[in-house]
């Protein structure tokens, strides 16, 4: 299994722990990722507010580069990149004039895009290409006893639910259970974290972050698992502001790939676990404890 890998700016910046954990985990599963040569910013939500034709052109350069690389499938771990790349594909299908504009812009730099690059999220690849059975076989330290709130955020499932239900996604729930973790019921799993509002309109953004953390705590979660670098940043880095406003709700937020790495027995330092402001200290028991459970104790 080989994919073009589109890290996006966040995975090289504030969300580097996502890349740090994604790469060894995928390698451990035999999934080959080739970083897209000379990829550029997808445009994110910010560029859509400037000019959607240009936003699509920015995204299209990456789609064209993926096509040129020969690896048809493009892996986009960041939820915002994933949305923008998919949105661009939709625009091109629905509005031929936009595709024509993008074709001319790409032509100006000697690129072309036929429209066929599938954009995939790691969760999609893990569940549908690798498979939960193959993942289970790699688990050497099950996440036994760890209670996890699965937090998907908005942009992975909205507005395009490509591989999961947009109202109640379960891909990450199933994955975390396969790792031996306990998934708590978390009805806010697709509620918005506020995106960049934490920085631009903090009174609104910080409140949304607080709501998510508070609910996770109320549900007894030891941590939140996320699929998006901006969600991780918001839920983790603004703890001082949240505490000042609402009191402490220090639930750590980790990438689902970091939990996979722990369950696979990969060393901490390969998983970027030192990157969080609210530290995640829980570790699975040694491999011995991973042996099949003894028969239930007789009461």
């Amino acid at each position, binding site marked *: 299994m080989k994919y073009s890998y589109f890290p996006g*700016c*966040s995975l*090289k*910046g*504030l969300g*580097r722990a996502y890349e740090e954990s994604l790469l060894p985990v995928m390698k451990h599963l035999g999934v080959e990722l080739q970083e897209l040569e*000379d*990829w*550029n*910013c997808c*445009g*994110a*939500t*910010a*560029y*859509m*507010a*400037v*000019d*959607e034709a*240009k936003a699509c*052109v*920015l995204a299209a*350069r990456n789609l064209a580069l993926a096509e040129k690389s020969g690896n048809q499938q493009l892996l986009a771990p960041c939820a915002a990149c994933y949305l923008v790349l998919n949105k661009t594909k939709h*625009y091109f299908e*629905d*509005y031929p*004039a*936009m595709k024509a504009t*993008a074709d*001319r*812009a*790409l*032509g*100006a*730099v000697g690129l072309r895009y036929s429209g066929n690059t599938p954009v995939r999220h790691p969760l999609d690849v893990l569940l549908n290409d690798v498979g939960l059975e193959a993942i289970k076989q790699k688990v050497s330290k099950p996440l036994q006893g760890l209670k996890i709130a699965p937090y998907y955020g*908005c*942009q992975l499932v*909205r*507005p395009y639910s490509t591989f999961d239900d*947009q109202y109640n996604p379960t891909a990450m729930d199933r994955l975390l259970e396969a790792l031996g973790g306990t998934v708590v019921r978390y009805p806010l799993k697709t*509620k*918005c974290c*506020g*995106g*960049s*509002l934490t*920085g*631009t*309109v*903090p009174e*609104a953004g910080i409140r*949304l972050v607080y709501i998510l953390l508070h609910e996770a705590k109320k549900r007894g979660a030891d941590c939140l698992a996320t699929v998006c670098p901006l969600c991780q940043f918001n839920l983790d*880095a*603004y703890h*001082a*502001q949240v505490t000042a406003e609402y009191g402490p709700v220090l639930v750590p937020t980790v990438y689902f790939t970091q939990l996979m790495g722990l369950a696979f027995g990969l060393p901490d330092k390969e998983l970027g676990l030192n*990157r*969080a*402001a609210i530290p995640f200290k829980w570790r699975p028991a040694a491999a011995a404890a991973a042996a099949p459970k003894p028969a239930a104790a007789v009461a």
Partner: protein
Amino acid sequence: MMEMQRTIKYDADRVKGFGREIMNVPGCEQLEGCIQCGTCSGVCPLSIYMDYTPRQVMALTRGDFKNEVLRSHTIWLCASCYACTVECPREIRITDIMYELKQRAIHAGIYPKRFPIPVLAREFSAMVRKHGRITEMLLVMKLFLKTNPFAAMGNWRLGIDLLKTGRFSLATEKIKQHGDIARMLDATDAKKGSRA
């Protein structure tokens, strides 16, 4: 003396043709069928902070109230979570309409003081044009310096956390073919022939 203010809109406040113009934009066509049910306002996680709810923005836009929507706080509070778009029974792509309104407000130079989002959008697009990639810390620093340096100081704890966890990096990320981005963006403009 009590200041008297008119609370209903008159026909004279309309900018005739504005609604039609928006409904002609790719992705915004379905606005015509809005039934004013308010589902968008109900599911919006930010509507409690808005001056006009999303439902009202839909009605005002369709009704040609250009000045009201372009000056509203609503368009800057939209976080692009797409909850309204997914829930709308008339399949109106409300998030995309908000994007269109943001673009027009930026283009018309309407930058409300309280909302630094237009500044973020401008700095973001300038950085992409120049380097092809975003260096997040650099973008955040620019945003704070250009809008509210005091808020940046209020966030000292965040800065320290980022330093401690090795995420504070100001080294500029850039692509190799960085001239390509500007060439592509200019080629897009040339063909559209209108907005920058």
